[in-house]
C-alpha cells in the first residue's frame, strides 16, 4: 500500500531554542540575517540531490525544526566547497552552519546510519585520534566493512589500478608522539565548548 506522509510542518514539530543554539556556535551568528534569496541553493553543486536545499535548511534551522534538519541527507551531501559562503549576500557562513549541524547529528546519534558519509567521518575521526595520521587505503577498507562491502566488489578495477600504478599501501601511518596528541585532544573536551557526549 502507498505510504502517505504529512508534508506541512506543524508548530508542534518545532524544538524550541534549536535555532538559537546553532546561531550561538562561533561562525554561525549571521544566520538570523538570512533573507531567503536562494543564492546558496543556486550556487550549490549538490543541491539537486538534497532533500532540503541549503536555503530551506537555513529557514528550518532558524524556525527550530531540529529533527527535520538533523535527520536530513542534505548536511552530509555538503562537500564543503564554500561556494555558498563566498556568494551569500549576507555573509552567512553557510558551510560552517552545515558543519555545526553535522556535529550535532553525530553527537545526538541521529545521522542516517548506513549512509556512508557520516560513517566515513567517524572512521576518519577514530583513525586520526589513535594514530595522528590517515592511511587512505585502510580508511576506505573500514568504510566498506561498515557500510556496503558489496560496493567494494564494484571497485575492484580501481583497486587493481592502484596496485599496478604502485599506489596501493595498507601500512598504518602514525606520528611519533601519539600520546601527546591524545592528551591535547582530551584537554579540548567535546563539542563546541558546550560539552555533549558522543553516542
Amino acid at each position, binding site marked *: 500500500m502507498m505510504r502517505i506522509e504529512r508534508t506541512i510542518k506543524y508548530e508542534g514539530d518545532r524544538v524550541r531554542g534549536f535555532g538559537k543554539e546553532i546561531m550561538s556556535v562561533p561562525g554561525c551568528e549571521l544566520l538570523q540575517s538570512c533573507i531567503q534569496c536562494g543564492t546558496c541553493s543556486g550556487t550549490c553543486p549538490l543541491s539537486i540531490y538534497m532533500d532540503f536545499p541549503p536555503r530551506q535548511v537555513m529557514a528550518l534551522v532558524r524556525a527550530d525544526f531540529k529533527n527535520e534538519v538533523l535527520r536530513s541527507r542534505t548536511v552530509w551531501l555538503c562537500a564543503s566547497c564554500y561556494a555558498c559562503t563566498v556568494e551569500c549576500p549576507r555573509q552567512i557562513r553557510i558551510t560552517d552552519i552545515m558543519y555545526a549541524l553535522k556535529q550535532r547529528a*553525530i553527537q545526538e546519534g541521529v545521522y542516517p546510519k548506513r549512509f556512508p558519509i557520516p560513517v566515513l*567521518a567517524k572512521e576518519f575521526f577514530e583513525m586520526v585520534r589513535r594514530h595522528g595520521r590517515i592511511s*587512505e587505503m585502510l580508511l576506505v577498507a573500514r568504510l566498506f566493512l561498515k557500510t556496503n562491502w558489496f560496493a567494494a566488489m564494484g571497485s575492484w578495477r580501481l583497486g587493481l589500478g592502484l596496485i599496478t*600504478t604502485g599506489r596501493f599501501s595498507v601500512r598504518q601511518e602514525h606520528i611519533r608522539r601519539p600520546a601527546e596528541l591524545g592528551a591535547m585532544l582530551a584537554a579540548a573536551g567535546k563539542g563546541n565548548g558546550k560539552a555533549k557526549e558522543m553516542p
Partner: protein
Amino acid sequence: MKDALKYSYFPGCSLKGLGRSYEQSLLPVMRRLGVELVELDDWNCCGATAYMSVDEAQACVLAARNLAIAEKTGPRDLVTPCSACYLVLNKTKHNMADFPEINQTVQHALKSADLTYSGKVPVRHPLDVLINDVGLDVIKEKVVRPLKGLKVAPYYGCQIVRPYATFDDAWNPTTMDRLLTTLGAEVVPYPLKTKCCGGSLTGTVPEAGLRLTYILLKEAVRRGADVIATVCPLCQFNLDGYHDQIDRRWGPARIPTVYFTQLMGLAFGMTPEELGLKSNFVSMKPLPAESTTV
C-alpha cells in the same frame, strides 16, 4: 628575488599516500628554484573535512598542533600543497584570531604539550610562493623544455580560493594560468576552474560525486585541452581514478590530470619517471617532439 627562501613544509597524509607524486614533483622543482622546504617535525593530519564534521573543538586543536610546532620551529612561513590542509590550517588560524572561546580551548589543549600558537606563522600555498616570492622571471630562466603546443585546462578546485582568497581571486583565479603560460603551455579557457570535484562523495555517493567529476572532465575535453593541471591530491585522484565508472555511467571523457608541479618538472627538463607521472591511470602523451629542439 631574496637570496635564501626557506619554509616549513606540511605535506599532509595524501602527499605520503595516494598523492605521493605531488610531493615527488614539488620538492625537486622547488629545489631547482632555490626554495628550501623543511618538513615539519612530527606533523599530524590536518583533520580535513571529516574531523570538522564530528567535533569542532578537537578539529581546531588537531590543526593547531601543527601551527604551534611550526611557530616553535622558527620564523618561517608554513607551506602546504594539499588544498584541504591549506584550508583547514588557515581556517584554524582565523578561528583562533576571531573567536576568543575557540582560542582559549585550543591554547589550553596546546599547553598540555608545552606548545603555544600566537598566530604569527602564515599558512601559504606553493602557487603563492612561486608567484609572489620566487617570481615568474626566475621560473622562466629554469625552463629548458618549453611546453609548446601543450593545451592545459587550469583547475584550481574549491579550497585554495574559498573561503579565504588570500593570494588569488575567489571567482577567477589566475596564478596557475600565468605560471603555465610562463612554462610555454597554452592555457585554454576553463570556466569551471573553481567548481567542486565532488570531494569524498565520489567514493561515498558516486551518483552525485562522480557526476561533478564527469562535468569537469567533459568540459576540459570540449575546450580542446590535452591535459588538466591540478593543485590538490583529492582532485587529482577523482579526475584520474574513476574513468571506468564514468565511462559506464555517462560515456567516455578521457583526459589525463596531472599536478601543476609535474608540468613544471617537465619544462625544467625532468623525465616523466622522476616526476611520478607513471603512476597516473590516464597517462599523458609525450610532449610534442618539436619542443625538445626549441
